[in-house]
């Protein structure tokens, strides 16, 4: 019980400290790292305290310390799984899926006929739930990473498509009229007006897609895989009740996902520096 209480006290103190730092040093570089780190640390300590204080069975939820220990001793396994699932499956699928979505969005945007025809049908096809498609794609593309990439393609396609279509429509009248007076060709208007104007929306989609890609690649492995990969490890470790290993894999996924998201956010900042949401702070 005392573990529980001290965890809560720590949590309250850390939250107060965070609020104070954020208010006092709003733009300090160290604060930008320290605040989220402290926030995360509070969550972990709260977790540790809860697990210990409430005597939660390690079979249901292991303590962060146990997870950290397991993590440290299985780095080799974790790295192999990371390479299989993320470097091969997720990344390949992400690139193909986002690329395809952008191209389809452009095609759709260009042709009102396609827009009316493809968008609803595209919505429909892309809304097929992964749990349904994953077994089918595993059947089609085999057990290795190719089928995982295919699942990722299906998962990231829709969010990127929706955002890109909205983005391509986000130009204002004056900006379009300008292009009309130059009698700019379709391609020129696309390259010089519509694509730049669509970027803030596109990055919205790309950022959401990063986490979806990871989920897709991992989940697809539940439906058949070679004997490596994060999803494989998670499902087998659950069977062995090796929860610390499960959570180590989840931690890898979280780290990779945050890194991936952060990378996209950085690129976004560089590409859409002109957008008010980036400019104002």
């Amino acid at each position, binding site marked *: 019980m005392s573990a529980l209480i001290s965890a809560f006290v720590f949590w309250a103190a850390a939250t107060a400290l965070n609020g104070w730092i954020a208010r006092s040093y709003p733009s300090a570089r160290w604060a930008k790292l320290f605040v989220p780190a402290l926030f995360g640390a509070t969550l972990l300590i709260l977790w540790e305290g809860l697990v210990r204080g409430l005597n939660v069975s390690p*079979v249901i939820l292991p303590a962060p310390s146990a997870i950290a220990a397991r993590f440290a001793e299985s780095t080799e396994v974790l790295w192999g799984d990371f390479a299989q699932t993320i470097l091969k499956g997720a990344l390949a699928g992400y690139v193909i899926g986002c690329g395809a979505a952008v191209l389809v969005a452009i095609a759709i945007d260009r042709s009102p006929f396609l827009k009316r025809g493809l968008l609803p049908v595209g919505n429909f096809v892309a809304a097929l739930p992964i749990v349904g498609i994953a077994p089918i794609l595993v059947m089609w593309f085999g057990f290795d990473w190719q089928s995982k990439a295919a699942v990722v393609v299906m998962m990231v396609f829709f969010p990127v498509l929706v955002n890109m279509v909205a983005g391509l429509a986000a130009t204002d009248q004056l900006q379009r009229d300008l292009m009309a007076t130059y009698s700019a060709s379709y391609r020129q208007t696309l390259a010089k007006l519509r694509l730049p104007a669509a970027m803030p929306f596109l990055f919205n989609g790309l950022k959401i897609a990063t986490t979806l890609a990871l989920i897709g690649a991992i989940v697809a492995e539940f439906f058949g895989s070679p004997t490596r990969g994060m999803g494989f490890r998670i499902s087998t470790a659950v*069977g062995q*009740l090796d929860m610390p290993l499960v959570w180590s894999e989840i931690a890898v996924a979280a780290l990779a996902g945050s890194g991936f998201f952060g990378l996209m956010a950085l690129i976004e900042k560089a590409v859409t520096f002109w957008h008010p949401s980036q400019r104002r702070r």
Partner: protein
Amino acid sequence: EEVKLQLKWVTQSQFAGYYVAKEKGFYDEEGLDVMIMPGGPDISPTQVMAGGGADVTVDWMPSALAAREKGLPLVNIAQPFKSSGMMLTCLKETGITGPEDFKGKTLGVWFGGNEYPFLSWMATLGIPTDGSEGGVTVLKQGFNVDPLLQKQAACISTMTYNEYWQVIDAGLAPEDLVTFKYEDEGVATLEDGLYVLESNLADPAFKEKMVKFVRASMKGWKYAEENPDEAAGIVLDNDESGAQTEAHQKRMMGEIAKLTAGSNGALDPADYERTVKILLGGGSDPVISAVPTGAYTLDITDEALK
């Protein structure tokens, strides 16, 4: 009195005994109100037990023993299944005639605790499974038989009562197939036993309840063995997903009856010893590292079968 039973898999004839006992009023006769919760590939019965979501669960002994070693003390209180229904089913056209032909082939295996009999089998055969030279390629097989039909694997894991018949239903003839039963290969482990938490057994009232439960369940099993078609019908009525077909369930019940036939519900310690031995020999990464103690009790069945 309320009893929550967590199954290992979805509603099917594999669990006919419990459904029959419920529908036929055997539980009522004991004064029990039994709630049967179906499982699935995403449900780990041991976790449900750990979370206090069920009083008793149907599980395979390898996974129950693994849980025990990981700190969740499950105890076998009854063993309605005498023999194992697990086997490896291969396409004849791949040229496999015996286990020595496995080398260089791709084999589909169920993971999640079901891989240990397979791994110890391979270990006794001296065939590496880590992808090294002269070994086999192991695939984590999904929930259906597609890898065999699509020829993505030379052999896949099947149950005598389920997946094997799906292969046959798909249009392959038994002559096209070669099967290796774990039972015949001497690597069979105990399946579908009833497990409870050790701590609960300390409570005499709980023990009493389990005695009633096992007694009624076995009554259900024996009824199901004698009336397979009726039992399959009962299972079908209890399937909320509406996915099962009558023909398949009837056939499954027939096969299940063969596995339960030799058991009156009591665990045969010899079977237990054999299972432990196989699991301890499971190659480089055995499922259990030491001989478990107190992993089963005969108290409940002794009482129930009096």
